[in-house]
């Protein structure tokens, strides 16, 4: 399987050369990274090329890399800390004031394709250039099924899809504000609603509960959970190919 993916990866990079920024085969899955401006061209190639023939778009989803690699519990040093101290404020800007500015590309649109003819899968990752206004070209004209998946990524992450025919919110409530799956959107939400007897209508108010951490987020790097190393490690360097820059 991995050999097949390697040759497919070589075929794609051979045909599209500099348009593929990175390819990676891990866990029997092929991932390619594409710049936002090249996405449509790469997508049409992947759909129409005989050796690829990805007729079906299975999924599009957003990922927010804002807090990637952050842990709430330091396990590297000596001794232990107990519990997690969590500051809480209804106004996020108060807390964020002393946080370092996020560097790098924050939003990524991940597309999964399936070829029924060749029985293959591929993952396309597109990192958005602008963190304030993440923009990717829409794939609706290439695969119709992208329509709702892109609406979902827009709704939950605020990723804008250029050329989408109907980019409306889909999963959140009518009149919802904010993009709930962003990492800086609190799990408990920002508003709660109740029926106000005096005003005789439903009112929205800032949430009155405090967010809690039940199990802290821990990253263990001592390798105690690593299993079956032969799947990855032997080939990890050989498989990751930086193409161009």
């Amino acid at each position, binding site marked *: 399987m991995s050999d097949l993916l390697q040759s497919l990866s070589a075929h794609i990079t051979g045909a599209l050369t500099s348009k593929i920024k990175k390819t990676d085969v891990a*866990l029997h899955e092929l991932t390619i990274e594409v710049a936002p401006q090249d996405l449509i061209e790469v997508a049409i190639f992947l759909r129409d090329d005989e050796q690829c023939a990805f007729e079906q778009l*299975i999924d599009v989803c957003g990922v927010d890399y804002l807090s990637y690699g952050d842990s709430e519990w330091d396990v590297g040093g000596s001794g232990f800390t107990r519990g997690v101290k969590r500051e809480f404020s209804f106004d996020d800007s108060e807390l964020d004031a002393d946080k370092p500015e996020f560097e790098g590309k924050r939003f990524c649109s991940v597309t*999964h394709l399936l070829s*029924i003819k060749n029985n293959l899968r591929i*993952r396309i990752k597109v990192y958005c250039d602008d963190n304030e206004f993440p923009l990717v070209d829409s794939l609706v004209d290439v*695969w119709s099924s992208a329509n709702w998946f892109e609406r979902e990524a827009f709704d939950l992450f605020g990723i804008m899809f250029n050329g989408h025919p109907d980019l409306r919110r889909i*999963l959140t409530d009518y009149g919802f504000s904010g993009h709930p799956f962003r990492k800086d959107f609190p799990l408990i939400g920002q508003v709660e609603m109740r029926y106000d007897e005096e005003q005789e209508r439903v009112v929205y108010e800032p949430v009155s509960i405090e967010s809690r*951490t039940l199990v802290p*987020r821990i990253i263990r790097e001592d390798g105690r959970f690593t299993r079956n190393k032969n799947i990855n490690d032997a080939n990890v360097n050989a498989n990751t190919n930086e193409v161009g820059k």
Partner: protein
Amino acid sequence: MPEIRNFTLNFGPAHPAAHGVLRLVLEMDGEVIQRADPHVGLLHRGTEKLAESKPYNQSIGYMDRLDYVSMMCNEHGYVLALEKMLGIEAPIRAQYIRTMFDEITRILNHLLWIGAHALDVGAMTMFLYAFREREDLMDVYEAVSGARLHATYYRPGGVYRDIPDVMPLHEKSKWYNDADITRLNDNRGGSVLDFIEDFTNRFPKCVDEYETLLTDNRIWKQRLVDIGIVSPERALQLGLTGAMLRGSGIEWDLRKKQPYAMYEAMDFDIPVGTNGDSYDRYLVRMEEFRQSNKIVKQCVDWLRKNPGPVMHDDHKITPPKREAMKGDMEALIHHFKLATEGYCLPEGEAYQAIEHPKGEFGCYIVSDGANKPYRLKVRAPGFAHMSAMDELTRGHMLADVVTVIGTMDIVFGEVDR
């Protein structure tokens, strides 16, 4: 000359034929649909966001609640994705148990589908027939996991426990007299596997009964034939999977093409349709009943002959046995660490898909090496099917919308997540 214009009709969100909370805004020209705009998300619970705040194992229960009529299949997709990233494999007996329960779940799902679909189209009897058989399978769920619906039975590294030796019996109550109890417990004398085998022996006859009610039924055919036709090309473009794709004549089933668990060792066929209309999809699913039944039978035979462990013995990931914890310090520590912290997945990402009763159900997990997912995306088949609603209903009558919802086998737990 009077002015004639289209009018907008609001269908749902609490319409009995909407299979949950679907609000459809229909633009009508008389009784003909010009445009359908489904408003989904009324059942959005933020499952993926919640999963980001919990250790991996605590989200298995959330998977049951996605598509709440095919619980264990959802778990299977999630658990397989975890196992892929951890680099472990469940013991072979656990794989057979999973295969068997996937197929039991498929029968459960299709029973609810045929019951609800027929009820929407006007055949009341079907619903009662389907729930009769569903009850038996629900009891099997309860016997192995303790819960009739939200089982949380599959775990990374295996299944929660082996299939019990005793099938629970009905007890006398003010609703059941002695004669009822004797009748109800008639086939429950043996083990759970005996009960399942008994079920597989009588189920083909039940499917025959369903077919006598519907397959050649004049009204059923009038309501289904040529409704919601999808060409193979459009089915691929629209992201349709499962029976929706096979109904259009594309022979694609992940159990055959990208096998997982023990499907490679199973003998079964993939039914496909020819016209891509609702009636073909009905026939495909009816045949799937029989094929699933065949798989369950094969699994029962194997499970009878081959005892063995059902959980991986790596206690960094799976909890140790309860008895071991009483006497062994290491086992106690393992349990404590798993209960309080869980396990970390290596950094990376994986997508794992399974053939869910409704189509392709997949979990995409991004891990940064922590004990919680950095991002979990659930690819629900119903979401893609629902997005094809507009194209499938355009030009049909209002009453056909109900047929199309039924044929898509929509459950809002997974669409809205």
